[in-house]
C-alpha cells in the first residue's frame, strides 16, 4: 500500500505503524464525573465499518508524524491523509 503523506507525498506503507480508529483523538476528560463511562467507550468501543474508515498511522520510519488516513476497508482505496496534529488542533479550536 502507499500512504499519501500530506507533506512527503506517497510513501510505502511499510514505513508506517498502524494504530486504529481515529476516534482515539477524542480522549475524554479524566477529571469529569462521567469519566468512567466515557473512558469505557473510548477504550473499548469502536465502529468497524466496511467502507470508509478514518484511521491512525504513524510514520515511524519517516518524519514521525501521526496521520489520519481515510481508507476504504473494502477496496483499500485511500481517499486522503491529514496530519493528526492539525486535526486535533482544529477540533480544540472548534471546542473552545
Amino acid at each position, binding site marked *: *500500500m*502507499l500512504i499519501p503523506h500530506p507533506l512527503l507525498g*506517497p510513501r*510505502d506503507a511499510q514505513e508506517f*505503524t498502524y*494504530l486504529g480508529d481515529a476516534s*482515539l*483523538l477524542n*480522549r*475524554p*476528560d*479524566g*477529571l469529569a464525573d462521567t*469519566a*468512567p463511562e466515557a*473512558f*469505557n467507550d*473510548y*477504550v*473499548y468501543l469502536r465502529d468497524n465499518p466496511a467502507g470508509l474508515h478514518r484511521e*491512525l498511522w*504513524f510514520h*515511524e520510519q519517516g518524519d*514521525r*508524524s*501521526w496521520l489520519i488516513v481515510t481508507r476504504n476497508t473494502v477496496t*483499500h*482505496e*485511500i481517499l486522503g491523509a491529514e*496530519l*493528526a*496534529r492539525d486535526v*486535533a*488542533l482544529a477540533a*480544540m479550536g472548534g471546542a473552545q
Partner: protein
Amino acid sequence: MTRLSGGLIDRGTTLNFTFDGRAMTGHPGDTLASALLANDVRLIGRSFKYHRPRGLVAAGSEEPNAMVELRTGARQEPNTRATMAELFNGLSARSQNRVGSLGFDLLAVNDLMSPFFAAGFYYKTFMWPKAFWEKLYEPMIRRAAGLGSLSMLPDPDSYDKGFLHCDLLVIGGGAAGLAAALTAARAGAQVILADEDFRLGGRLLAESHALNDAPATDWIAQIEAEFASLPNLRVMTRTTVFGAFDHGIYGAVERVGDHLATPGQNVRQTLWRITAKRTVLAAGATERHIPFANNDRPGVMLAGAMRAYANRWAVSPAQSVAIFTNGDDGHRTALDLAAKGVTIAGVIDTRAGARAQGDYPLFAGAVVSDTKGRLGLKRIAVTREGQTQWIEAGALGVAGGWNPNVHLASHHRGRPVWNDDLLAFLPEPGAVPGMVVAGAANGQGSTHAALQSGAQAAIDALAGLGMTAHQPDLPRAEDAPVNQAAFWHVPGKGRAWVDFQNDVTVKDIKLAHQENMRPVEHLKRWTTLGMATDQGKTANVTALAVMAELSGQSIPATGTTIFRPPYTGVSLSVLGAGDTGTHFRPRRLTPTHTWAADQGAVFVEVGQWMRAQYFPRAGETHWRETVDREVLATRAGVGLCDVTTLGKVDVQGADAGEFLNRIYANAMGSLKVGMVRYGLMLREDGHAYDDGTCARLAEDHYVVTTTTAQAGPVYRHMEFARQCLWPDLDVQLISTTDAWAQISVAGPNARKLLERVVDGFDLSNAAFPFMACAELSVCKGLRARLFRISFSGELAYEIAVPARYGNALMARMIALGADLGATPYGTEALGVLRIEKGHAAGNELNGQTTAQMLGMGRMVSTKKDSIGAVMSRREGLTAETRVLVGLQPVDASARVAPGMHLFTEGGAQNTDTDQGWITSACYSPHLGSMIGLGFLANGADRMGEVITAANPLEGQSAALRVVSPHFVDPEGGRLRD
C-alpha cells in the same frame, strides 16, 4: 530426431548437458525442454498421484508436467519447469517423482489402483481409525506425495532485492507489450518492460507470421535497438511479475543468474518491488487442451506449443504428428509443421464443416477418443459418427482455444467475465486500479490487434497521468478472426485428464458433481484441481466448462476462476532476499561492545541488541560461578554495567512538565530541577505499560528513560500523546538512546570510584543525594550526565558520556577502580541484583499487570488526569488481590522457576485454586538459595506463610515462604548513604 530448419538457436555453439545421467547436446537459445525434444526425449517425468509417464505439454511457464530437478549438490532445485530452464553448458537435470527408473516406476502401481484414488479419497479413507492418522497415514502420504527433493544443504547463492518506481509498468514483452512500451517510452514516460522469457517477442517468436513482410524478429531487433537508446525505459527480461498488490505495487523476480553454470557468483535472483503509477498488462494467453481418454501420454501436447517448438527451436516431438482442434488455430500448427517437413498424419477437427487449409488429411466433425503407447504416444483413435479408426502418430497437438492470462488482473479479486464470442474469460475492466489490459490477455489475440491494443493501452494509461502519447507506426500484421466452436471434452469411459499435474480427470469432476461439490471453490478443494505448482493454468477453465456441462448450466452461471499471487512459483530464498546467519537481522551494539568482547564477554541477544551476558574469568567453569562472583563483587565493592540500551527521550518545551504529568501515572511536573523520579506509565486501559526514570535537567528540559524492550513503542506512544491528544502543549521530543553511553556504577565503592573520574564535582551525600542528577564533565573535560539512581539496591549511579567515549570510559573506570574491586557485570548479574532488590522488570510489566499488583497503586495520582488513571480505578482492576511478593524456598536447595503457579500448601492444584504465579527467579548468592518474585493473591497479608509453587507439566513442586520482595536492604539505607 534431427533439428528442423530455422529457429532462434545458435547452431554454431554446442552446449553439453545431461538428463538422468545421459549426455546430450543443445544450443544457446534452447530451453531444457526444446533440447530434450531435440535429443528425442519425450518421457520426462511421472505424474503426482498415479505416477503416469508424462512428457511436455507446453512451451512456457504454464507447463504442468515437465518438472525436473536441476543442478546437483547444494544447488539442487526441485520442480523446475524444463520449459523455463535456459540451457547452459554443463546443465544437469533429473526426472523426479519416480521410485526406480523413469521408464519403470514402482509407484506406477498407483495407476492400477486408481479406482481407489478418486477425488475425495483422502478425505474419506484416512478418517479412521483416528490413531492411524499420525502414525501411519500421514507418514505414508507424505512419503508418496511431493514432487522432487531438496538437497537439505544451505543455499550457497546470494539473493538480492530492490525497489523500482515508474510511470508505466508493461507486463509482457510480446506484440502488445512491445507496442505499449514503445509508445510510452517515446512519450518520455518512465517505463519498465518486464517479461519472464529471456528474449523479447513473446508469441511473435513462436509464430511464422511476417511483420511488414519480413520475419517478426527483424521488427523486434529494430525495436530493441530503439529501446537501448531510451534512458527512460528499463527492459527487464527473465523477470516475472508475480503479483499485483495495492496502490500500484507489483512484485517481480528477476532471474539474474539462473541461466549461468554458477548462478550465485554474483546474484542468483533479485526480488523487485515495483511501484507503478499505471500498468499495461500484456501477459498473452495460454492455450487449453481438450480432455479425452488417455490424453496424458508423452507426445500429447498443446498445438500452440508444438508450433512454438518448431518455429522458435526447430524441433518437433515426432516425425509424424496429428492435430486435434476445435478451431482454425490447430490448422496453423499443421501448416507450420508441414512447412518444416514434418508429416501431418491428420487434423482432427470437431467442426463438421471444417476445411483443410493445406495438404494434409482432415477428419472433420471428428474427435480423438483414445491413445496408445506405454511410455510415449504411438497411435490415436479418431472417432467420427460412431466409427473409430486408429491412426499412427508420434505426437498429437491439441488446440482447444486460448485462455487470456487474466491472472494479475484478478489479484484484487476482480472476477473475469465470460465472452461467448471468444469462448474465454476476459479480465474484468478496472479490476486493478491503474491497470489497462491489452493484446491476447484481453482477447485481442491477432498480431494486428495485439500491436494496436498495446499502443492504445499505453496512450490511455499515460493520459490518466496527464501525459500525451502517440500511436507509433506499427507493422502490418496478420489479423485472422477467431474461428472456433465450443468443444470442451470428449465423452467416454476412459480417464481423461483435465489437470495433469494433480492428476484430476473428468471422472473426478463428475464425482464432485455427484457429491454436490459443485461450486467452483468446492470443486477445487474436493478434487485438488488447480492446486498444484502450475495453479491449473491449463486446467481451470476446462474443468469449469465440464462442470457446467454436467450441471446443465452456462459457464458463467457455473462460476469463474480467479487467481492469487504468485503467477508462478517464487523461491523462499528470493522472498527473503537478504542475508542469512549473522546479518539475518540488524544487530545493535552497545558503546562498550568492543571492550566487552576484548574481556571475553559472553553476549546475549536482547531484541536487536547484543548485550554482555556475563564476563567469565579463567578457571570459571559454569556461567553461574561467574554471575555469582559478579553479584557479590558489586554488593561488596563496585560493579559496572553498560545500560545504554535503556531508551532515552529528550523532552523539552515550556509544557514539558505538564506533558509528563499526563503520560506518567505519578506527578512529574513537581520534580525539582536536578532531581530524578521513578515513573510508571499506564496504558489507557489501566494496566501498567512501562517504567523508567525522569530526570529534570532544567525547568523546560527533562530526560526520561524507558525499558530496553519498549523504547520504540513508548516513543511512538509519547508522540501520539503529543501530536494527537495534547497538540496545544509546547513539547518537543527526540530520542537520544544511541547518543549517550550509559554505565551503571553500583556498590558501596561507587562514590569512591566516580570521584576519580569526575572533574572536581562534589559527590558527597549532601551535595548529590539519592535521586539527584547533574550535567558535569569527566576525565578532563568530557561532557557527561550523572544520575544517582539504583536498580540493585546498592549505592549506585548511572553515568552517561557521548557514545563514542563509552568504550574508553569503561576501560578507564575498571582500571581506576582495581583497588576498589571494580568488576564488570552483565545482564545475568543485573537480573539477579534487581530480583534480590525486588525491582519490577519486563517479566512483571508484561501487559497483564497493574500498578496495584506491582505494589505501586498509590503512585497513580488522583489529583490529575493521566493516561490510564481512570481505567486503573475500575472495579475489575481494583478488586485484584494478587500483589508482588518475594518467595524463598523452605529447603534452600529447592528449585524455583518462573512460570510456576502458586497454591495453598497441601491444597488442590487446579485453575480454581490457582493463587498466582512466579514471574522471575534466580539463584541469589546473597541468600544462598534460589529466590523468586511473583504475584500472589492477598500476598501483602501472607508474609511468612508457606505456600506451594508447582509446575504440574514437569512434575515440579517446591515449598516457598512468602517474604518481602526486597530481599536486600528492605529499608533502603544503602541507597541513601
